[in-house]
């Protein structure tokens, strides 16, 4: 078994696609199940501003995909890392990908959050950084393999 970089959930909702689409894309409905979206520029590339715990998130998310009633995806800051040198360009983000599939029984929703293993981009210091595209996934799978080798 390995550590996965993604979380996937599915749910069959016995309502029409249009209703699910509105619930996942309209801020006033998102507020009722997802969280507060204080600002949304509803177009590919548009920003989504989140607010949680009554605080505006320092970094907005970005809409990546809009395929009406089928596919909605956005990136958002993956975690609130409080490092003084992280900026909007360097804070890692995850991709939240929602797809809707019309079925006789209703709407089949698939949600995937990926990039959980994403890391902050190189934090500028006096040291030289090499390629930092990998997340911690490979590294921790190494740790996992080591631990499993110890369980003899």
């Amino acid at each position, binding site marked *: 078994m390995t550590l996965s970089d993604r979380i996937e*959930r599915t749910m069959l909702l016995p309502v029409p696609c249009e209703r699910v689409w509105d619930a996942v894309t309209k801020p006033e409905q998102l507020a009722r*199940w*997802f969280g507060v979206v204080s600002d949304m520029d509803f177009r590919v590339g548009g920003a989504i501003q989140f607010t949680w715990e009554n605080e505006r998130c320092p970094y907005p998310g970005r809409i990546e995909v809009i395929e009406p009633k089928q596919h909605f995806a956005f990136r958002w800051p993956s975690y609130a*890392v409080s490092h003084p040198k992280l900026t909007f360009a360097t804070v890692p983000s995850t991709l939240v990908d929602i797809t809707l599939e019309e079925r006789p029984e209703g709407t089949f929703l698939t949600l995937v959050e990926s990039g*959980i293993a994403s890391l902050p981009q*190189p934090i500028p210091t006096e040291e030289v950084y090499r390629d930092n595209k990998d997340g911690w996934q490979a590294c921790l799978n190494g*740790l996992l393999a*080591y631990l499993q080798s110890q369980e003899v």
Partner: protein
Amino acid sequence: MERRNKQVMTDEQQRVFLALADPTRRLLLKHLCEEGSGTAAGFAARLPITRQAIIKHLVTLEQAGLVTARETGRERRYMPRPEALSTITNWIEEISAQWDQRLAALRSLLLEEPSQPDTARPEEHTTMTEHQERTNEHDSDN
């Protein structure tokens, strides 16, 4: 009413992720996992990094709880710390649980029912480690 907010990391989790953010530290941890243990001098002898820089990295890994060290004569010998994995798997668990909450709330919203998180559990497709599955007390009620 549940708060549907973004999961915020604990200090411990932040230390781990920031420690892993450096590719040299990931490389050192990889070697430690493959070889079981290592010393700064040993790494300096075969990596194009100064011993001083290696020590700094190993200390950061130690402070993040990813490795432990013991004094053996003149050297500090470092080894991977098994508990480190649970910091990560717990974080993934927390994110997953939050999605379960959100989707249950979505379902309630769409069906205009009072929120019933226990009966509206979505199907899981997360890949989890064997270690996590064995020790997981919150079994999915499939």
